[in-house]
């Protein structure tokens, strides 16, 4: 079983189910990528894994423990980090304060973790006293990822970290994400740039209408003609 896995998840925001028997998971040091059309339920699957909506069926396992009924805050304490798709920084607070808030649950010295984040994203060091709301979209995404890294999570959930980011910065962000994974952190991410993402993925999920359509290694999905035709634009 994977290090983090949402198994057979069924549920939604209200009466109607968005997810139908959906399973996503990731292992330590690996990158798992979820792709699929708009409205497929990718973000919903991430939120379900993080306990932000009630599941009717299925369970979420983390490090061999059933965490289905834990609140998001409690999952943070367990070692999970989440970067939502939107509203993922504190806009009125400075970059440094964003990182401090990311480390809110920690009582030890956070200076070295902050240095690591600055090493990973040098631009943040430069802009550390600027409000996050005044940064460019790409810089903001770096703040968002940096904030989530501050708890030193064992698993990181990223919902479209490269949204609205130029191709160059995107490649750079992917490099950084690989770097984070190499440190032994499990990364589960949703990506709109399916080709590039599957290229770096150990595991890929194609979601359609809240259900798993294809699940395989990133490489195999890239090679699969059906996936190529329908989801990767040929």
């Amino acid at each position, binding site marked *: 079983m994977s290090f983090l896995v949402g198994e057979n998840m069924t549920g939604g925001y209200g009466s109607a189910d968005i997810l139908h028997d959906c399973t996503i998971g990731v292992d330590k040091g690996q990158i798992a990528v979820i792709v699929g059309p708009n409205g497929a339920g990718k973000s919903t699957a991430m939120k379900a894994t*993080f306990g932000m909506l009630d599941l009717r069926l299925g369970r979420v396992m983390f490090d061999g423990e059933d965490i289905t009924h834990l609140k*998001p*805050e409690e999952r*943070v*304490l367990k070692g999970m980090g*989440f970067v*939502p798709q939107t*509203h*993922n*920084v*504190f*806009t*009125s*607070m400075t970059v440094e*304060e964003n990182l*401090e*808030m*990311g480390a*809110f*649950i920690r009582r030890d010295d956070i200076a070295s973790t902050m240095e690591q984040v600055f090493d990973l994203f040098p631009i943040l060091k430069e802009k550390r006293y600027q409000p996050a709301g005044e940064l460019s979209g790409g810089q903001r995404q770096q703040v968002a990822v940096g*904030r*989530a890294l501050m*708890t030193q999570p064992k698993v990181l959930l990223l919902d479209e970290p490269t949204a609205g980011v130029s191709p160059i910065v995107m490649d750079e962000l992917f490099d950084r994400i690989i770097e984070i994974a190499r440190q032994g952190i499990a990364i589960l991410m949703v990506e709109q740039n399916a080709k590039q993402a599957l290229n770096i993925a150990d595991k890929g999920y194609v979601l359609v209408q809240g259900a798993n359509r294809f699940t395989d290694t990133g490489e195999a999905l890239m090679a699969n003609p059906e996936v190529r035709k329908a989801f990767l634009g040929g």
Partner: protein
Amino acid sequence: MADVLNALVLLANFLIVPGLTYGSQLALGALGVTLIYSVLRFSNFGHGEIMSFGTMFTIFFTWLFQGWGLSIKPLPTALLALPFGILATMALVMIMDKTVYRYHRENKSSNVIFLIVSIGTMFVIGGIVRFAIGPADQIFFDGTRFIMKAREFKQMTGLSEGLAIKTTQGITIVTAVIVVAFIWWFLNKTRTGKSMRAYSDNENLALLSGIDPARVVMVAWLLVAALAAIAGTLYGLDKSFKPFTYMQLLLPIFAAAIVGGVGNPLGAIAGGYVVALSEIAVTFAYKRVVGYLVAEEHAPETLLQLLSTDYKIAVSFIILVIVLVIKPTGLFSGKTL
């Protein structure tokens, strides 16, 4: 030259010093309203009565200390009693939150429900205050009345106009500066204060960062209780304590909060002074000031008063309407702490 100075002293005595004093009181009140708005996301109409409640308890303790013969002359005994008034107010808001507001938070009631509930608390607290201390006027200031008397000022400067500074005015302004500095330090430099700003900025992300909303809400209420008790006591010391005036204070306080941009603490402070100074400026009779500045034959015959003081309360209302029409987000727009 002396005439110009006389005119300035006249303005300082009747407009600027009282304006800064009243402005400080409004600013502290508006700061409380703004804190609740940005953390709990509703307009707390009960704020005036919370101020009244805090003042009442400060008065009770003042009487107790006076009975014991305790005194800190030249300062009023009320300053000694104020910490106890603050504690009583903190107890009140904690009980109120546990019994009333928590239910609505857990049920995710809409803002309108919160607003109506706060009007309910206003009536309940107002009732308690009138029941406990009575509706009559209470003057609880003791200590030395003046820091500087008009006569002393005249002797000192040789001018024909005097500048008087009441002890209560000095205390109000100094306290306001200290309190505002403390709030600024708290919100920007402490872990708890920053978590409060984070929660106000983005509730969801605060949750994802492990910030405990229950704690943020509790700290916000405690701060607001302290601010309300301080603002109310300063106002009561300066004027007098009369329960119904505190309900009337709600309008200028909300005007101040909205002028500055609701949810913005700096705006609330600036708004307090804007409202107070305009209220006094438009009800001030400029006859004597102009009299000093123009030749005798041009001296005005009317009072040169824009509005009679009876309409003082209307000024806040007019400011409120103007701001809402021209710049609804306030002078310092922004919804966060």
